[in-house]
């Protein structure tokens, strides 16, 4: 039987406000503010994209054309060739490293987080509330707060510069556990699980054949969020591979394992040519800083392309997931 639907609606037409000078001015100001803010957000990215198509400058004040002009596609191809010629660090290796670290982290986050969320949502066991509380606290503290303790731990265990030193923290994604917990903690899922059990499923089969197929939307969410967080992380690999990773025992310096850098770390080290080595004696405040220069002295356009290539996977993921992130539905999970 269909429920009878009676809609009572009082349609009161609100006549649009008459156009006045004051309201016109207000609109003008509003759009001007929006335009200025949009320009603030967009221009650096537009500059980055345009710069990669230009010959680029190699020193300060050797400006080539206006900052926001398009060069040529031919130049873009040339810059690309310079970038991957092997002169500019080990960009290919660093990209592969980032893919390995972030990819493994995501796999762990999904593989451990989804069952954990399921376990928290459907079973009652001693320590459940404590675990839930710890997960929520861990999800709400900034991940950077754990970096130094993690580095100190890895130092004490002799795990610095080991891929596991970054992969395991990337795989720890309490927000994913919380999302999975909320997702499975609904009457609909409970009903389906009860049906599966009365049909003779054991606990594993109920999870594998009922809960897991239901969880594809949150799998996507966990993958996207953990991937972006891992790929863009700088502080953790900096601590593990550079600051402490180049330190031998008792303050001796050993060669940094640049071939293990993720792309964020490699690119930054490549660009910061004026950078002091982690153990160099601090220099007095530099007054001669003219411009950023790469160790290879490549033009700014190649440096711009280097930055763009280093974040390209994140941009791709964001654009694919854009509709769904910008819709705010993701945040709707909490409400």
């Amino acid at each position, binding site marked *: 039987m269909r429920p009878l639907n009676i809609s009572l609606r009082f349609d009161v037409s609100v006549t649009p406000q008459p156009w006045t000078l004051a309201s016109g001015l207000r609109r003008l100001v*509003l759009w001007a503010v*929006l335009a200025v803010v*949009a320009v*603030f*957000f967009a221009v650096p990215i537009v500059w980055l994209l345009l*710069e990669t198509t230009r010959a680029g*400058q190699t020193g*300060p004040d050797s400006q080539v054309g206006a*900052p*926001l002009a398009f060069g040529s596609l031919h130049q873009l191809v040339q810059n690309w060739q310079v970038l991957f010629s092997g002169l500019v660090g080990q960009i290919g290796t660093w990209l592969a490293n980032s893919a390995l670290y972030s990819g493994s982290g995501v796999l762990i986050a999904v593989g451990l987080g989804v069952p*954990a969320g399921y*376990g928290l949502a459907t*079973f*009652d*066991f001693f320590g459940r*509330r404590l675990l839930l509380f*710890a*997960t*929520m606290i861990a999800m*709400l*503290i*900034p991940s*950077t707060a*754990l970096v*130094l*303790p993690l580095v*100190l731990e890895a130092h004490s265990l002799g795990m610095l510069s080991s891929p596991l030193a970054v992969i395991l*923290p990337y*795989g*720890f994604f309490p927000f994913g556990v919380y999302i999975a917990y909320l997702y499975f*903690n609904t009457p609909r899922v*409970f009903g389906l699980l009860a049906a599966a059990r009365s049909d003779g499923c054991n*606990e594993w089969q109920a999870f594998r054949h009922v809960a897991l197929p239901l969880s594809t939307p949150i799998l996507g969410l966990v993958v996207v969020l953990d991937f*972006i967080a891992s790929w863009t992380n*700088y502080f953790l690999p900096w601590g593990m591979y550079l600051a402490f990773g180049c*330190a031998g025992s008792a303050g001796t310096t050993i060669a940094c394992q640049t071939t293990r850098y993720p792309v*964020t770390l490699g690119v*930054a080290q490549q660009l910061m040519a*004026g*950078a*002091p080595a982690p*153990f160099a004696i601090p220099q007095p405040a*530099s*007054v001669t*800083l*003219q*411009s*950023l220069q790469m160790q290879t002295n490549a033009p*700014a356009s190649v*440096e*711009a392309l280097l930055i763009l290539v280093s974040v390209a996977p*994140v*941009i791709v993921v*964001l654009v694919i997931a854009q509709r769904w*992130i*910008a*819709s*705010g539905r993701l*945040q709707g999970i909490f*409400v």
Partner: protein
Amino acid sequence: MAIRRKPQLRPRKSGYLFVAPYVALLVVVGIYPVGYAANLALTSFTAHFAGLTNFINSYHDYQFVPAFENIGKFLAIWLTALVVLVVGLSLVLHSLNRRVSAAFRFVFYLPAALAGSASVMLWLFVLQPGDSPWNFILRWLGYKTLGDSLAPGNLPVIFALIAFWTGAGSWIVVMHGALATIPEDLLEAAKLDGAGWWRTAVHVKLPLIQRWIAYMLIGAFAAGTQLFVEPQLVSEATAAASNQTWSPNQLAVFLSFHLDNFNYAAAISIDLLVVALICAAVILMRTGLFKVGH
């Protein structure tokens, strides 16, 4: 926050099997390192219990107070920008046509793709007179080199600009999600009662999203005290000694690998962790956003 135990929950031991791997990871990369750092912070160089000595001594380090002052300036600028601009822009976008609003949100959100080190490097180019798209502003300010732009007095503003550029879009999306939950009827009722754009925004919408604003401010405060990537890359670019210990996190790292003083470093990282834990607890207990159960 109330964690309710629901009758449907199955009192089965097999729950442990589902959570065990995650709990192991939680211990290895969460609980153990924090315990290890806390232990280091409470022991002396010779591995004897030292009470709060490391906390007191690290506080008296000549670089400690300046680092927290730097962070204070940065937070004041950044949090003000967040609360005024993110809330203001979200309210403006919410009253626009759906498509236009979505397009603006996308533009505001896009810099999030460059979160972390990439945005700092991009901004170092943007702040470099000569090839910068904002050349006319930099010239007007009288800056001739990147060194001029990165003058010590400018750093809190620059870090706030970078943090706002990469992070504001995500918060605007969060606020949009919160505003989207306001029932249409309520807004229509406000309109019928004669409330204009301003009064609807301030007296109807704002009170309904204030929990989210509180969440944003506390979360941003906690994250801001941890500031590291921005000052670190600037210090590497400028090779200026004063920049190496600009933020508390930098100071902690500096103390441990330059001076081999892991105990002070651990003490500072515990200071910051306590701030983060208090913020997390306040968000959890007071905003009521993170509910448990359905």
